[in-house]
């Protein structure tokens, strides 16, 4: 028999870990359904707002003592408003019986005093009131201008809306800037990295605990060095994560660069889209744009790098903790110090997205334990200076080296230690212990 070196041992372990995981139903389902789930998480709230605003048709009666404005208001949305001569007493009964959602009383001196009362059963949401108020305000403003003797063409001029289109300056000239869209992209990528680091980290610790609890580790340790066993597992499971991420990146690439331009051609007239929207509901808050923002492929490269480096940094620590305990339920407490630096950046994402260039954001994103999430967010949200990106790469690689060194020393002792529940102090003692 050919004696083989350690490279083939670690390769054997990597392949074993990879294939066992990739072949599971759970992995295949998660890989395919993951993007759908993510889309659902992002778009369901948007859809609910869009549909929700339109879903409750409200009937509002208008009692108009000015005998001018009421007609105009009804014209702004005939499905909602109608003029009436009923007495307030009758209308009150109608509202109470549910036939009517409310009634608006416009006093005779409304244009001067600018005050009118709307009577409803209460509730109805801010959206409803805002719509009503702006409908009334618009009509009133027009009327006031006309009374002041302003020419109709001038009034129309004033009424014309304003849109601020953000333009981004590049070397090639200017292009449309999608600051808000980029913020969302940053948040989504940061969140994916967060989820994957926790998920794959726990795969590693669970795998280590399984081997220890089932006493498989003793046989493996008599075949390979503890460092090879640990790194084989970490790399193998990392490759599983990479497979998943690459699948998603390629899928997004196909969507963004192949399918989106086709769709973009169809919906290239934003004005038309806008008019459609306006007809549905005049005061709906418009999404910034329906065009798909131009996401640089470099953002995907950064995503893959920060995911991988973050995973490796934490996975080794998860392996170390897993090796120290006898069963999964004991791992919780020891895992807290590792989970916290993964969770904290998610709490800071909001700040970093709003101020991606502030000194605090720069420092936070260069702190290696936070880098995977926060630097990812910044790279997506703003053009990060090259030196900061290089610094983050160097710092990540350095910390990875340190974590591997420390984790390997804990692992080596931990896998053979049964029966006692170690604490953090014990782990540090193991680090210092000699071979």
């Amino acid at each position, binding site marked *: 028999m050919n004696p083989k*070196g350690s490279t083939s041992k670690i390769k054997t372990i990597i392949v074993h870990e990879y294939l*066992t995981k990739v072949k599971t139903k759970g992995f295949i389902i998660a890989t395919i359904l993951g993007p759908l789930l993510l889309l659902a998480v992002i778009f369901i709230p948007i859809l609910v707002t869009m549909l929700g605003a339109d879903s409750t048709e409200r009937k509002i009666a208008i009692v108009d003592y000015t005998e001018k404005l009421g007609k105009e208001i009804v014209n702004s949305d005939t499905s909602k408003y109608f003029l009436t001569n009923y007495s307030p007493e009758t209308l009150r009964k109608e509202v109470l019986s549910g036939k009517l959602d409310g009634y608006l009383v416009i006093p005779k001196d409304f244009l001067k005093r600018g005050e009118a009362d709307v009577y409803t059963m209460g509730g109805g949401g801010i959206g409803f009131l805002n719509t009503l108020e702006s409908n009334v305000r618009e009509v009133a403003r027009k009327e006031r201008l006309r009374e002041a003797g302003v020419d109709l063409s001038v009034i129309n001029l004033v009424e014309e809306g304003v849109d601020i289109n953000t333009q981004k300056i590049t070397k090639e000239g200017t292009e449309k800037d999608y600051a808000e869209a980029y913020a969302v992209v940053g948040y989504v990528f940061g969140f994916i990295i967060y989820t994957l680091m926790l998920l794959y980290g726990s795969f590693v610790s669970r795998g280590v605990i*399984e081997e220890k609890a089932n006493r498989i580790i003793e046989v493996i340790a*008599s*075949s*390979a060095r503890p460092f090879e066993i640990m790194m084989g597992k970490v790399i193998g499971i990392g490759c599983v994560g990479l497979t998943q991420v690459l699948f998603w990146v390629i899928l997004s690439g196909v969507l963004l660069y192949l399918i989106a331009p086709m769709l973009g051609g169809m919906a290239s007239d934003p004005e038309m889209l806008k008019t459609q929207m306006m007809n549905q509901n005049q005061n709906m808050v418009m999404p910034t744009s329906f065009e798909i923002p131009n996401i640089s492929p470099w953002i995907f490269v950064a995503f893959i790098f920060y995911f991988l480096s973050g995973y490796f940094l934490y996975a080794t620590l998860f392996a170390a903790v897993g090796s120290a305990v006898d069963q999964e339920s004991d791992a919780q407490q020891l895992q807290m110090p590792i989970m916290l630096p993964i969770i904290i950046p998610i709490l800071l994402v909001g700040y970093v997205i709003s101020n991606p260039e502030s000194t605090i954001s720069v420092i936070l994103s260069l702190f290696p334990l936070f880098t995977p999430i926060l630097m990812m967010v910044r790279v997506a949200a703003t053009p990060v200076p090259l030196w900061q990106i290089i610094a983050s790469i160097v710092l990540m690689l350095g910390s990875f080296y340190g974590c591997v060194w420390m984790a390997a020393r804990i692992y080596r002792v931990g896998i*053979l230690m049964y029966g006692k529940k170690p604490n953090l102090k014990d782990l540090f003692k193991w680090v210092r212990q000699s*071979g």
Partner: protein
Amino acid sequence: MDILKVNSIVKRFGDFEAVSNVTFSVEQGTVFGLLGPNGAGKTTTIRMMTNILKPDEGEVSLFGEKVGSLQQNRIGYLPEERGLYKKIKVIDQLIYFGQLKGMSRSDAQSEARKWLKKLDAETWETKKIQELSKGMQQKVQFITTILHNPDLLILDEPFSGFDPINTEIIKKIISDLKSEGKTIILSTHIMEQVEQLCDHICLIDKGKMILSGMVREIKKNYGRDTILMEWDGDDLFLNEFSNIKYINRSNNRAEFRITDGLTPMLILQKASQKNNIYKFELAEPSLNEIFIDVVTKQGVDNES
């Protein structure tokens, strides 16, 4: 030729010395019994032989070289605490462990099939471990130990969990491997098996080696002081002797060791006065006896 040399190894865990100054060597083609009570330091010693742990002092050499990654491929180790991946198929599991010992995938596969067939377990190939009974799992575990045709086998309680039929099958495999020139280190608490299988033994207690040598020599040195007798009648005559250490005693049968000036002849004379003697045998003590004797004596020495 000595295939394994353990040269005054010491292993400490903190202040606790688990193994202190243990030395022995194992000759090729023999079965070596590594014995000792629970917690004596056997597992730690085995872990140093398999390169799982490094000794703090001393050295283990295998096949003429200091033990390391390369030597590991030539060892098959069956730990006392068994374990396999619960959710992985039997064949995949065997292939993986074979590859970890440096086999190619295809070699591992064909060897795994060969052994499964030999142990009447071909039909388990695609089953997951969790679907197998305890005894079946033990068989699979045993195959992982010998799959890569190791020159040195280290078996810790190899028969635990096996029924008498399977125990015989495993014993047969062990003796076959021995006749092929493989070396076997056996660690067990069942002394009958040691007497049946082992050529040499080493007895460890509290990390120290307290007895070692060839089984035959050790028993011989202990002398023929054990009497096994059967008779017809009562056993009152035995009460006249005070220097007797009983191993077994009933109305018509007794096994005991004699000490301090008592001779077999004296007992035989006394017994034959009133009884018919069916059997009177002067034997070497069993290893079990020696084991208990040595370990308890050691305990007394330590306390005094």
